[in-house]
């Protein structure tokens, strides 16, 4: 870890976004993670994405569980809301917060231990309920805080730093998310910000349950030969299906960039915004949940790491729609709205008799 704070001085040409904030204004405290940790790159990508989207920091709530990954919300968006919950219980805290205040942008940050082991039940339910959020797993395949035991996402046959071979089958969070009904599912790599930043931006504007599995090498315990989550292995086996090259276009803004037909997929979302994807795998269709699952599994079997926007439902439904909740955040409701009085209660009771 680093002892000095990152100097406040910045490059003279550092740009401000529409809100007048520079990228540096979206930073948090200095990281206490190991030098070279992939998680720090993901934090940097989140900072970049939020700055580019002109997000007001007070409109973001970042929630996490326990683990190296779950420490990271302290290292970005220092002026946003935060909740560091119990191990594996971030999804239920996030669900509750979301129900209470639907106006915030929810950013759940978790790890492979937090989501695929102790919190796998919570992970499953938050996905199937369609909570409007970004659920980001910083996936390094080991328990870094306890010195590098295999986590549940470690590939079968991969080796630990000490040479032990993993005999258990891995939990594939992407496959789970696809199966459980997440409406935006992506995978990326901490060492590829050109891919990761647009994915995070797209996930933030996606009005449903968005899941991003980010392979994030653990330099201390999982960056050796024999690991399938090292910088070198992921770079060598990365099979991107597409790139969000052209970014997120706010609704009703004319798209003037013209690209050769057949290589670009436009995804018009519920709010009218459009995502444009440059196809890298010619036969890949990100609209089809079933084929996406098959594609990912087939390539996984070959030892390849499929990355990119794997599935997106342009018209997702979220938990609020399912429950037909009130439109406004609860904190805007007055005592009268929350407690309509004896007459109203009488009326309800009468209707149930």
């Amino acid at each position, binding site marked *: *870890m*680093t*002892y*000095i*704070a*990152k*100097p*406040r*001085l*910045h*490059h*003279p*040409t*550092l740009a401000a976004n529409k809100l007048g904030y520079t990228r*540096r204004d979206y930073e948090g405290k200095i*990281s206490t993670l*190991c*030098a*070279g*940790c*992939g998680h*720090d*790159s993901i*934090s*940097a990508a989140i900072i970049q994405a939020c700055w580019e989207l002109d997000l007001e920091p007070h409109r973001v709530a970042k929630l996490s569980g326990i683990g190296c990954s779950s420490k990271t919300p302290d290292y970005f968006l220092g002026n946003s809301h935060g909740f560091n919950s119990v191990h594996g219980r971030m999804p239920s805290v996030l669900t509750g917060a979301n129900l209470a205040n639907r106006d915030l942008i929810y950013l759940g940050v978790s790890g492979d231990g937090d989501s695929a082991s102790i919190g796998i039940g919570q992970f499953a339910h938050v996905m199937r309920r369609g909570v409007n959020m970004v659920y980001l797993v910083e996936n390094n395949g080991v328990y870094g805080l306890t010195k590098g035991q295999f986590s549940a996402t470690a590939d079968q046959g991969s080796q630990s730093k000490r040479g032990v071979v993993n005999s258990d089958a891995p939990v594939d969070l992407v496959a789970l998310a696809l199966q459980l009904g997440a409406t935006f599912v992506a995978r990326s790599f*901490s*060492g590829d*910000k050109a891919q990761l930043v647009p994915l995070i931006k797209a996930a933030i504007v996606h009005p449903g349950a968005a899941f991003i599995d980010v392979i994030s*090498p653990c*330099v*201390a315990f999982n*960056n050796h030969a024999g690991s399938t989550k090292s*910088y*070198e292995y992921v*770079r060598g086996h990365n099979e991107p299906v597409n790139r969000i090259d052209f970014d997120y276009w706010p609704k009703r803004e004319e798209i003037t960039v013209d690209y050769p037909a057949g290589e670009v997929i436009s995804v018009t979302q519920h709010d009218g915004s459009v995502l444009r994807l440059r196809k890298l795998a010619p036969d890949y269709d990100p609209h089809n949940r079933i084929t996406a699952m098959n594609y990912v599994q087939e390539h996984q079997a070959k030892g390849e790491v499929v990355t990119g926007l794997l599935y997106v439902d342009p018209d997702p439904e979220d938990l609020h729609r399912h429950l037909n909740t009130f439109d406004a955040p609860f904190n805007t409701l007055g005592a009268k709205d929350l407690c309509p009085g004896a007459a109203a209660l009488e009326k309800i009771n009468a209707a149930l008799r």
Partner: protein
Amino acid sequence: MKPTDIRDPSYFHKVVDCQWACPAHTPVPEYIRLIAQGRYDDAYMVNWYSNVFPGVLGRTCDRPCEPACRRGRVEDGQSKEPVAICRLKRVAADNKSDIRARLPKAAKQKNGKRIALIGAGPASLTVARDLAPLGYHLVVYDQDPQGGGMMRTQIPKFRLPESVLDEEVAYITDLGLELRLGQRVDSLKAVLAEGYDAVFVGCGAPRGRDLDIPGRAQAAAHIHIGIDWLSSVSFGHIDSIGKRVIVLGGGNTAMDCCRSSKRLGGEDVKVIVRSGYEEMKASPWEKEDATHEGIPILNFLVPKAFIHDNGRLTGMSFEKVKAEYDAKGRRRLLPTGEPDQHFECDDVLVAIGQENAFPWIERDLGIEFDQWGMPKVDEVTMASTLRGVFFGGDAAFGPKNIIWAVAHGHEAAISIDQLCNGEDIRTRPAPMVNLVSQKMGIHEWSYDNEVSLDQRFKVPWNDVRVTLKNIKLEVEKGFDAATAFKEAQRCLNCDAQTVFSASLCIECDACVDICPMDCITFTANAEEDELRQRLNAPALNSAQDLYVSTTLKTGRIMAKDEDVCLHCGLCAERCPTGAWDMQKFFLEMTHAGPSCRDKHAAPGRKAA
């Protein structure tokens, strides 16, 4: 781009902007750290070896290092101020203990070579300092009764106390020189006839430019040439001036003249300058000092005539002009057509420039002069066209400043030493260079890498009501130890270099993410112009290099823009493999002596 060759000493030298800008290449960050540690003696000695007059320069240096200081490029907000390098140097000089035991001693054995030094100013004294310990017999000539040259005659004592100058001149004269002071040289031929092995001309630019306009001759009794007047004041020949004084000229001499006048009875003192305020040659801080003492500076006024009443000066008239620039950006001063302005005065000091004058050098000696009457001098070796005769300081290339004179002196001393050893003076010695990791612990460096956000501290002044009454009382008080520490902490330690080892890099981006200045980019290689645009933050200052690595595993390169790097070491702290390391670059110029001779020559460092 080709990978950067960091073995070339000039690469990292350029990153240490202050040291690169200093004519004598003083290792500035090194001595600033020593000051922060309270090691004033050590800080003084680093300076003394390099620039010979730390106490003098800490008060009077033209400080080319400060405009170069990185701090001026990276600070936030309105003011971007360099570290007060010059005044920190003074802190070392003021607070040191008796360092005489650490100075070189007069040579016990002479080497039989005799060298004449003409003029006892900073250039000649530097030559003497470098050569005396080697056993040379040095004969110093000067027209004035004391050594120091223009440092004594032209710099008022309220800027440079006599004791400071005496002390630093004595460090050199104590090395066993033969001093022929108060002895004006009227013939170089006569000096050469004494059979010296080499002659160094460091006589300065001793002639003040005159102003030939109507009334000059008639009113001569109250019109004085600035540098001559300052010299007379310095030696106590003049101790008063009229109540109303006009100082003509916009350079540092004009500032010294007006401030001296204020102390010798001048009540209504004004500076009148042909050019605009911004184009004045005086250093900004010297203009500020004059203004602080209530001296108005009037601009765009061209002197037209001295007005006198039967030879008694009564005033001056000026034509009002304005500046216009032609297509090539050249300035012309055009009359505005307004009526002439008249200012009453009792005395005028003319400080409109200095000239070199060599009436004492016979033109048939083999020393070639150019059309402006300046000797032809090699800029590297300081040699004239006559073998064995060297020039330095203002005598070589016209008026510059003390630190340039020192730099010339060092180079001339090398040439003289080489000449006397039968070596080719065109082969110049390489500097001494060292590059060593500063890693102390897992995240601990031998230097303070936390970046101070303090703004530049102001040097406290004595009360102007007191200083104006005593021409010998120094105006500036110098930093106290606590302020000096804080000012020293503003130094970014640019000599703590970010050294990159491509073979260790795993391209994890940790350095890119942590760098507060967005200096580092991993990208495909390209030509420099394209690469500069393509970095995470565009590298638009082409005066500053890009540090480019060899090709990495992914086929990309690492490109670092040196321009605004804070040398905070965070890239190295966040690097998991030690591919980045903070290494201290120490460069010391080689001075005269065995290590300056042929076998130590730097490849490519040859004079024309």
